[in-house]
């Protein structure tokens, strides 16, 4: 079940919307943060908190790319490979992550440090190639720079 802090946060979220259902997307984010990923327990907690059927919570959550349905690494590398990033070398960075860290798209390093998610445009096209590590933007990436950035996340 949710922690007390999370329950308070959910109540505040709920107050922003004219119906409990409106708070479903933000509540799924809270569950993802609290439970690490959207486990069966996480779905049940959201369902109970908002009074929305568990099947509905799951149905909605699986529609959106940014909700995580399996355990993730401690840090989530979200690398864009859409056209603007691709033409400026994003694919080489995908290969670099594979060769240097054993990190496959959609996969996780064996030590659980990083997960890699391929993104569909993160709105940093003018400074491509770009990625987010957790909530932090990194732009104008090169192999060397990626190595330096990832070194900061232990």
């Amino acid at each position: 079940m949710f922690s007390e802090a999370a329950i308070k946060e959910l109540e505040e979220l709920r107050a922003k919307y004219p119906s409990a259902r409106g708070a479903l997307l933000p509540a799924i984010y809270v569950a993802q943060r609290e439970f690490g990923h959207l486990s069966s327990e996480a779905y049940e907690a959201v369902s109970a908190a908002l009074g929305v059927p568990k099947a509905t919570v799951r149905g909605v959550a699986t529609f959106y790319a940014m909700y995580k349905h399996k355990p993730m690494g401690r840090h989530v590398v979200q690398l864009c490979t859409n056209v603007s990033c691709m033409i400026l070398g994003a694919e080489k960075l995908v290969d670099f992550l594979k060769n240097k860290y054993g990190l496959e798209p959609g996969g996780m390093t064996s030590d659980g440090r990083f997960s890699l998610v391929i993104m569909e445009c993160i709105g940093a096209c003018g400074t491509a190639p770009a990625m987010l590590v957790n909530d932090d933007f990194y732009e104008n990436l090169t192999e060397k720079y990626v190595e330096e950035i990832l070194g900061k996340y232990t």
Partner: protein
Amino acid sequence: MEKILLKNIENSKSADISEYRKVGGYSSLLKALAMQPKEIVEEVKKAGLRGRGGAGFPVAMKWTFASADPKFPKYLLCNADEGEPGTFKDRPILEKNPHLLIEGMVISGHALMAEYGFIYLRGEYPEAKNILNRAIAQAYENNMLGDNIAGKGVKFHLAVHQGAGAYICGEETALIESLEGDKGQPRIKPPFPVNVGVWSKPTVVNNVETLSNLPFIIEAGGEAYAKIGTPDCPGPKLYSISGHVEKPGVYELPMGTSLRDIIYTHCGGIKGGKTLKAVIPGGISTPVLPPEKIDCPMDFVNMPKHGSMLGSGAVIVMDESVCLVKVCYRALKFFEHESCGKCTPCREGTGWLRSILGRIESGQGDEGDIDLLMAVSGNIMGKTFCPLGDGAASVVQNFIKHFRPEFEAHIKTKACQVKA
């Protein structure tokens, strides 16, 4: 041109309300609160403001439809789901000038007699979320949001709703579904959101950039605003340029600036003195153009006459090193991933197009594959609820229209002939 939308953003504290007020921020709102809602709509009509999300629909007309509906409460939704690949024009407003957007929304809310607003922000902008939430809190503290704004008896409440990585939620009815806590699948129209929108109430959905024009329109007047840009499409426009130019970035220029000027005058030309090969002028869904077609004014009315669309004003510039078969394949991978699954031609067709393009790209293409691509895209075009399917089909058709020999060479030689 004097900056209107990106005013003061070089100030590192521009997102703070006190800095915003130092450069005249919120004075337009105070002026607007003394006006009748109809007078504001009239100014917007005089300004000739068109929606900046891609469709270019006249804003005053949309507003009039919502105002005429007798149902209350009415909702004003800001579309900050900037997901069209190549587009990053709203990010500087969201991150550096959030109070401009908030001021624009309160003015618009007053004009519409809407008491509630939401900013539907894409999940990929976590920094913008924190900045907007801070700015909204400051606006409440300063009585620029709330039940009795500036003591003038006008009510408007605003909150951020974070999306979760679905391109389709940029389509207004899918955005509404998502805000209601559902899968982001478009609704059939009519009824239009101006009559039956979020929670079945009259709803106006406007883009970040559109709403950010409001403070200037109120301050300077609709007629002064209409002198900027072109007669059919007035105002400033944010163009976001990426790819192979010397100086990529977001540029605020008069609407109708030519694509050639944007690339060569403002962005310093092609990176490293290489040769231009192709340009996608308005985000990935808009038809690609070859180098000889870039003398076109970048606005909603002129671009269709030159074989493309303004879209979101997201210019992707590609030099001679780029394999266009690969770009087309990558674009279709995107559309397949983002198809919401509601309409069969889009859900199945985008996958087929991606698959055929994939085999051509990898040197496994068959002789009839180009005709097959045209046939499949023709069976998507015009046969879906929302424009995502049309966008995917049009990408394939236009890449083949302008660059057919490159596709043929890929199939014939079973390899890419482009020297990277």
